[in-house]
């Protein structure tokens, strides 16, 4: 897997410190580094940090002591760490510092399709853009060397199709670099005031110029495929688009008709090489994902076709099918070739006519978050529900989620909604939901600011004692660190109290009736003259991570003849274990999914779901 190859690159480069906050498609990097550390007996320091900025700063500090450091995150995580990125580009680094920011064109599991290479341009740091797992591994090592040579942080930008690609990868020996932490004080650099920042900016620009020069002469990551003489079309491409294109050209026997310039270092762009390639071709097409980073930098665009000329889709990932269609239309437009229409149109029509519903993701059977959402919806059906990033985003299906903006916004939007209505003297119920990991990530500043500014709403923290969505990484609440060793446990209730909240209750959301009662009390507290923000910690472990927990007190249910097939439970409780049997016109239980949580007993308005008599 690409992320394992990246982890291998990190250890082969002799990296001393690796930090991260989980997020698709980057989450597998840290566990793979942990695995290599254990297998090879390395002394690597590895941490899951509370958020991406925390991870970035921890890695940066290690670099300032002369050690090699890597920080991994998903692309929107770089937004969180961007403050540090921008500033560290100016101050620079000592030991090699590599930032791995995994992009998600599509997007498959993200809020945006943002292109991390723009962040590299914005911050003015170099970026490597791998096409395959093997190349990603090699680029990581080169990135460390470049970072050390020019004392600058360097970004590696794998897209999801590199991070999650499988490939047989050739490994190299692991380097052990013996370096003792040795921070050399230099306040003009590490604590630069604006006057010195100007000087640092000038130095950064000089370094970038030198790096660009280096990339011009580099043929390892920037190279041509093709014979380069009298070829009607040249294509400049990068990342996974490059390899997809190679397979397509091979399949269509078009290799001789098209030249390719593969760019592995999109910023700073080797301008001379690009200009020279364009000069040699009558027409040039730029295919890159996710956005137009290379294309925008090209100085003379008169011969260039690409996203800016409307030849490449503005959104979505460039699958081989999309690339084929781009190629077909450009070759036709230029009168070079007439390719067959891609795909079997008749088959598409037939499948279309079947009107198959897309499989929508849903919370697992027995998920405690479903129980909490169901209670929230019952207790306060007219509330505004601000929510957040995690499995519980799927509370959407239960119509108990109205907003999902970014990490932490469940609380901040609730606060903002309160003030916007309160200003008009309107009192409306607001229920914010947020997972434990998200609360540790960016909940505290949001919550204490809301308390300080007299906001009033209910916050339900869905504490399943794990970062579930991204693959079960430990949280500070668990007190176990990335490599499984013991850390200090952070108690949610203490943290909430320290944010100034005066009304805190903890409950198991499986206890639906009492949770409903508690939510109503919480609502009253938000309306009292001396009231404020009420926080409920709804604590029940994640069933995927802790499958045995539910097995302890099973509540096996059955459906009685009172079921009239009204669909209420199917539509508003949406447990994968409940389905409407069309033959019997009533709801049945799929025992392959049912975990005997018994929560659905509360979901049937007719009382037709009952515990099995023992």
């Amino acid at each position, binding site marked *: 897997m690409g992320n394992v190859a990246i982890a291998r690159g990190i250890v082969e480069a002799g990296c001393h410190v690796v930090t991260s906050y989980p997020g698709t498609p980057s989450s597998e990097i840290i566990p793979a580094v942990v695995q290599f550390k254990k297998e090879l007996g390395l002394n690597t320091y590895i941490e899951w940090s509370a958020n991406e900025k925390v991870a970035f700063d921890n890695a940066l500090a290690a670099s300032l002591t002369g050690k090699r450091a890597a920080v991994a995150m998903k692309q929107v995580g770089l937004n969180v760490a961007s403050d540090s990125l921008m500033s560290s580009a100016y101050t620079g680094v000592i030991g090699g510092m590599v930032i791995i920011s995994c992009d998600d064109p599509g997007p498959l599991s993200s809020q945006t399709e943002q292109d991390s290479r723009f962040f590299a341009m914005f911050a003015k740091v170099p970026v490597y853009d791998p096409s395959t797992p093997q190349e990603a591994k090699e680029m990581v090592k080169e990135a460390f060397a470049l970072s050390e040579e020019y004392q600058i942080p360097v970004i590696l930008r794998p897209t999801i199709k590199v991070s999650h690609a499988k490939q047989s990868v050739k490994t190299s020996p692991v380097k052990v670099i013996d370096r003792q932490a040795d921070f050399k004080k230099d306040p003009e650099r590490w604590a630069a005031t604006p006057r010195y920042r100007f000087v640092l900016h000038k130095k950064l620009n000089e370094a970038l110029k030198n790096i660009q020069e280096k990339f011009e002469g580099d043929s390892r990551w920037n190279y041509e495929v093709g014979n380069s003489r009298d070829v009607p079309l040249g294509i400049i491409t990068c990342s996974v688009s490059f390899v*997809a294109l190679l*397979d397509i050209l091979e399949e269509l026997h078009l290799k001789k008709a098209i030249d390719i310039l593969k760019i592995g270092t999109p910023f700073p762009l080797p301008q001379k090489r690009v200009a020279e390639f364009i000069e040699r071709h009558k027409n040039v097409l730029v295919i890159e994902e996710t956005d137009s980073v290379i294309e925008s930098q090209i100085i003379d665009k008169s011969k260039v076709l690409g996203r800016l000329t409307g030849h490449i889709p503005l959104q979505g990932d460039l699958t081989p099918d999309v690339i084929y269609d781009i190629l077909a239309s450009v070759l036709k437009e230029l009168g070079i070739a007439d390719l067959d229409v*891609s795909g079997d149109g008749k*088959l598409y029509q037939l499948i279309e006519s*079947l009107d198959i519903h897309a499989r*929508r993701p849903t*919370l697992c059977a027995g998920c405690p978050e479903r129980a909490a959402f169901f209670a929230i919806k019952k207790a306060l059906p007219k509330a505004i529900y601000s929510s957040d990033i995690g499995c519980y985003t799927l509370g959407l299906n239960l119509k108990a989620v109205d907003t999902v903006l970014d990490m932490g916004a469940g609380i901040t939007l609730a606060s903002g909604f309160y003030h916007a209505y309160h200003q008009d003297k309107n009192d409306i119920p607001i229920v914010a939901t947020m997972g434990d990991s998200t609360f540790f990530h960016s909940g505290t500043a949001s919550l204490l600011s809301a308390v300080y500014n007299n906001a009033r709403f209910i916050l339900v923290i869905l504490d399943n004692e794990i970062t579930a969505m991204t693959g079960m990484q430990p949280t500070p609440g668990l007190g176990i660190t990335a490599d499984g060793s013991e850390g200090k446990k952070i108690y949610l209730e203490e943290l909430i109290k320290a944010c100034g909240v005066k009304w805190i209750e903890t409950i198991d959301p499986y206890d639906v009736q009492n949770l409903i009662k508690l939510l109503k009390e919480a609502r009253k507290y938000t309306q009292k003259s001396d009231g404020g923000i009420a926080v409920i910690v709804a604590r029940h472990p994640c069933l995927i991570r802790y499958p045995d927990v539910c097995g302890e007190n099973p509540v096996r249910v059955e459906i009685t003849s009172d079921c009239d097939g009204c669909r209420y439970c199917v539509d508003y409780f949406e447990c994968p274990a409940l389905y409407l049997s069309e033959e019997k016109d009533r709801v049945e239980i799929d025992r392959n999914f049912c975990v005997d949580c018994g929560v659905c007993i509360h979901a049937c308005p007719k009382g037709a779901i009952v515990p099995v008599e023992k």
Partner: protein
Amino acid sequence: MFSSKVFSELGLKLGLDVMGSETHGMSQRGGSVIAHLKLGKFQSPVIRTGTADILYSFEENETYRALKFLRRGGVCFVNLEDPGRFDPKVLNHLKKSGVTFRSFDASGAALRIGSIMSTNIVLIGYSVGTGLVPFKHEDLRNVLESVSQKKNLEINLKAFEIGVREGKP
């Protein structure tokens, strides 16, 4: 995803280059999972529409959506509880495209040995039994032995052999 691991290992064992990709953003929460795998000399991990040789599908609706990847003359193996339910118009069209369509109630067979999770292995066994795929019984068995977790090994081998038996003409 386990199926994809099995075929990757098989490819490596046979000395072929292996490339592939998986989409599993929200898969654990019931979203769809598609794994692409290429054995041999390829550059890109993703399969283009109309170019796959073999399709394994473990769910009916997912089958309809994934059929587009198969090439003319390709072969597909589909887990279907009730083989009669598959859309006849689609079947007819596949026949015209030279696609060999084989369906089998792999879930049912897996359930009978008490392991619905082994549906994928039953279907893989089934494909080997039919003789329509270029994978050897012995090779796949060896791969299963090397990639299965210890606690699942026995049931996996059992599921595989049941599939092979059912697939035989």
